């Protein structure tokens, strides 16, 4: 595993408030290549907010985010990371293949073989031409995860990846993350339930305790 000196992503004394009410922070953590960070906290504790702050979608109140040692820059983030949100992230009217091809093309990947492989790996073989709207919640999650891999990014920010998945689905997500982490990638997974974590070096960050009041 390449011993990257600086962490893929690092937060130091990161705080976020909405309407002068502290949502989380100060948070200090880092994620190196070859490991995963589990962010725990009950619903509404600010897990999604934390991911959106790390992605640069929300301005933090204070604190610093560093990507591979350098200060946070939007271009740096989009080259380094892929983001799995709560919602599907793809269009219900478009077919599985169209959605996947679009996401891959957006990240500069244009070869069809990659798409075929991802569809098969995510158990969506045969659904290539089905509109995403017709898929079940679990299948849509698989399509979102396929899109996540299409960009071939090193750092995965995953918001509740286990939601609407059955036990087999959860195990499958864990193997996916495990394979990604073992090949030099990293993942930040937010979850509210006590799901089995992927069999990789894991750190945990509990958001509830950190919400110290300013």
């Amino acid at each position, binding site marked *: 595993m390449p011993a990257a000196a600086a962490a893929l992503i690092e937060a130091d004394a990161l705080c976020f408030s909405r309407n002068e009410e502290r949502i989380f922070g100060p948070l200090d953590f880092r994620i190196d290549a070859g490991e995963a960070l589990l962010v725990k906290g009950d619903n509404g504790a600010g897990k999604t907010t934390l991911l959106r702050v790390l992605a640069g979608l929300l*301005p933090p109140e204070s604190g610093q985010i560093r990507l591979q040692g350098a200060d946070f820059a939007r271009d740096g983030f*989009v080259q380094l990371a892929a983001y799995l949100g*709560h*919602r599907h992230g793809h269009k*219900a009217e478009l077919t599985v293949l169209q959605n996947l091809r679009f996401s891959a093309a957006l*990240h500069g990947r244009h070869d069809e073989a990659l798409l075929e492989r991802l569809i098969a790996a995510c158990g969506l073989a045969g659904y290539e031409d089905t509109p995403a709207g017709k898929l079940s919640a679990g299948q849509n999650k698989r399509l979102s995860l396929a899109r996540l891999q299409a960009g071939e990014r090193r750092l995965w920010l995953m918001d509740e990846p286990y939601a609407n998945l059955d036990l087999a689905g959860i195990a499958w997500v864990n193997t996916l993350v495990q394979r990604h982490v073992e090949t030099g990638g990293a993942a930040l997974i937010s979850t509210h339930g006590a799901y089995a974590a992927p069999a990789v070096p894991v750190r945990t960050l509990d958001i509830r305790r950190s919400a110290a009041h300013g």
Partner: protein
Amino acid sequence: MAEFRALLRRDTALMWQRRGDAAQPLLFALMVCVMFPLALGSEPTRLAQSAGAVIWVAHLLAGLLVLDNLYRSDLEDGSLEQLLLAPVPLPLVIASKVLVHWLTTALPVLLVTPLLAQMLFLPDGLLPVLMLGLTVGSLLMSLIGAVVAALTLGIRRSGMLLALMALPLYVPVLVFGAGSVWSAAQGLPWLGAIWLMCAGLALLLVLAPWAAATALRLALS
């Protein structure tokens, strides 16, 4: 610019899936143009005098009506978030969105404008002036609308607020557009107004996508 082509391909595919929506602004503009004679009476000379203005206002209102779903569907299914986090400059994403939005909403009304002109007895000589003005004007309104729609994205029932914010920004477009038809009707030179709108268009083609991108990041933060 493979990404831009990918964006266009995706937006046109979406447009094709929802081609039924194109009827919405078209029917609305038609209704406005039907209401007018019912209110004003069917006397040709009176209708002819206000035909250009009525068609312009119908275009403006039809555009305003459908402005809200420029980003709304992408926001709700999370794809807007993915677009914000894609390695593609956001103004480019918005430019492709506005272009496709214009194709699905303003173009159908433009195509039906000759029919509207006949219904309101617009003198034949004025039709080219009206079409030219409306083409440039509808592009201007879509670009301005993209900025305003981005600002009201986070708000639930934002229809009325969207109109309140957009109307002052649409005033110059309406004044020069409808004014060019009126000047042509009076035999005055009318091309100057159209050139002014083209100048505005050249400016907004660059500024509006950037402004809408900034507004989008502000509204979503």
